[in-house]
């Protein structure tokens, strides 16, 4: 599976039961960790935000100049740009619970 820029949910502006998620995933090359992170993210989004999310994948190997803008250090880093406030989740997103906590969907335990 190749990680590319991907938009799911044809009409991100349409809000059903909650706001739409605008997500940006920073990776550094097609590493197993990048691929795993993308797969994990996609799965979580399908389960919780079906039809109202958008994922933008940025490969820093190809666009190194974009790392500074979102203060990226670690990869993979998931940045939730909308809704505000901006949230960051680093790691391969293997723990769905923590990702949802990070996205403020579940209250932190």
């Amino acid at each position, binding site marked *: 599976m190749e990680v590319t820029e991907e938009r799911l949910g044809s009409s991100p502006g349409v809000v059903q039961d909650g706001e739409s998620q605008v997500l940006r995933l920073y990776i550094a090359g097609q590493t197993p960790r990048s691929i795993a992170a993308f797969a994990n993210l996609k799965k979580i989004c399908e389960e919780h935000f079906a039809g109202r999310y958008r994922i933008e994948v940025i490969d820093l190997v190809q666009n190194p100049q974009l790392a500074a803008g979102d203060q990226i250090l670690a990869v993979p880093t998931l940045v939730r740009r909308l809704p505000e406030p901006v949230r960051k*989740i680093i790691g391969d997103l293997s723990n769905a619970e923590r990702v949802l906590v990070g996205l403020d969907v579940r209250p932190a335990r």
Partner: protein
Amino acid sequence: MDHPPVAKLPKTPTGIEGFDEISGGGVPTGRPSLVCGGAGCGKTLFALSFLVHGATEFDEPGVFMSFEESAEELGQNVASLGFDLRELIRQKKIVLDHVRVERSEIEETGDYDLEGLFIRLGYAIDSIGARRVVLDTIESLFSGLANQGILRAELRRLFRWLKDKGVTAIITGERGEGTLTRQGLEEYVSDAVILLDHRVDAEISTRRLRIVKYRGSAHGTNEYPFLIDEEGFAVLPVTALSLDHAVSPERISTGVPRLDAMLGGKGYYRGTTVLVSGTAGSGKTSLSAHFADAACRRGERAQMFLFEESPAQVVRNMKSIGIDLQQWVDRGLLELHAARPSTFGLEMHLSRIHRAIGRFRPSVVVLDPVSSLLSVASSADVQGTMTRLVDHLKSRGITALLTNLTYGKTEMERTDVAVSSIVDTWLLVVTLESSGERNRGLYVLKARGIGHSNQIREFLLTEHGVELIDVYAGAGGVLTGSARLTQEAQDRAAALLEEQELERRQRALAQLKTAFDAEMTALRARFETQQADLMSGIGEHRARIARLKDDRRDMARSRRADAANGGDGATPKHDARAKER
């Protein structure tokens, strides 16, 4: 078997004044060096100076990756040091990247690495072809990221990566309890470790730098004071490493002719150090001013460092004794620097002096008075500092005059600042107290290599400057002031009397001679008169005798007496004739 010569460790100059000297050329090229120290010790400024000097002086662009301060904050901080960071960024000589890590914004889930940081740094390096990199302070990551295991592994990888990139890097680290850095960064950066320290002693702060470790290189191991001021970051190499400075046979004037005379007629040796010690108001500053004035008259540059008076005050006071310092200031030959001792720590004073000397390049330096530095540091510290300063001045061939204030109670031939052993010439201005007066006396206590006078001179401050006059040394000891004047007056009176007596006798002699001559003349006149009288009497007498003889002969002829009776018969006649006359 031949061994190839071991290549010397290449070093990259930091451009930081003094640091490159003590480190033998700078930090190791192509390797990371660790600069650590407590909060506010100057780590960031050290690192920034390294970068800015690299960009401006060595044509080595640099990347500054800040983990604490934003670009704007950094720009403001270094503007006070005279660096225009924004301009350097515009010229693509420096890239500034502010890495902000906010723990509260970050959730960690699963495995990750810091490739993002590597990419950012790599991109910044490549964008300007950087040769230098600063990471300030990378330890901030420890508070931003939870997984320490990953972080440590990644830092280790980062330092190796920096080496592979071939950039010369400075990593800063906060000092920890009992360790050089809080997170033990010294484990990863093992080539060079520089420790900065900021101590406050008796309310005066002193900054010090020490090279803790420098793999594969000799380096100074002492603690070196450093300063941060408007001219940037400067380390003071404290000890001249040897006593082998060149010496000069040239002599220069003290500015006081009589003092030159006391020092073998020619003054001080050039490049030596002179100490003038004396009590308050004994004229030490005046002697210093003479010395500086004499240097300026020769067209040389002089610098005076004043710890008690302001430049304007010194100029005014010296004018009152006929020394016009202002003219030299106006011509750029003289610089006066004043600073209260308590304004800075000792090292800061020393560093400022060093800097000023390095910039102005004077041939003559005056420090007035060094003893006031005692108020900010212990005697041992002042002595150490002075030794270093004197060595430094000697190595530059600068003739220095230090003044030292002694107190009434202390023994004169002991300086509070024990610098007497490091100076070459020592002049002592003493107070001679007698007959209810205090007068100043000056003598040469020591003058290495100069046949000097062993006499005390009385020291006067006149409107033509310092004058030295002979003291009256008599049976009753040394007389000065009005006692000397009295004695001199007495001497003059006695001398006058002697002269008068001599004149009187000479006059008497002359009179005697005149009288003698007069008498001689009179006597001669009388003699001549009498002589003439007698002579004429004698003549007549002879004539009469002749006539008598004739008469008698005539008579005998007439009487026909024989010749034999002639004499007897003639006698009565002769008597009668004599009575007739």
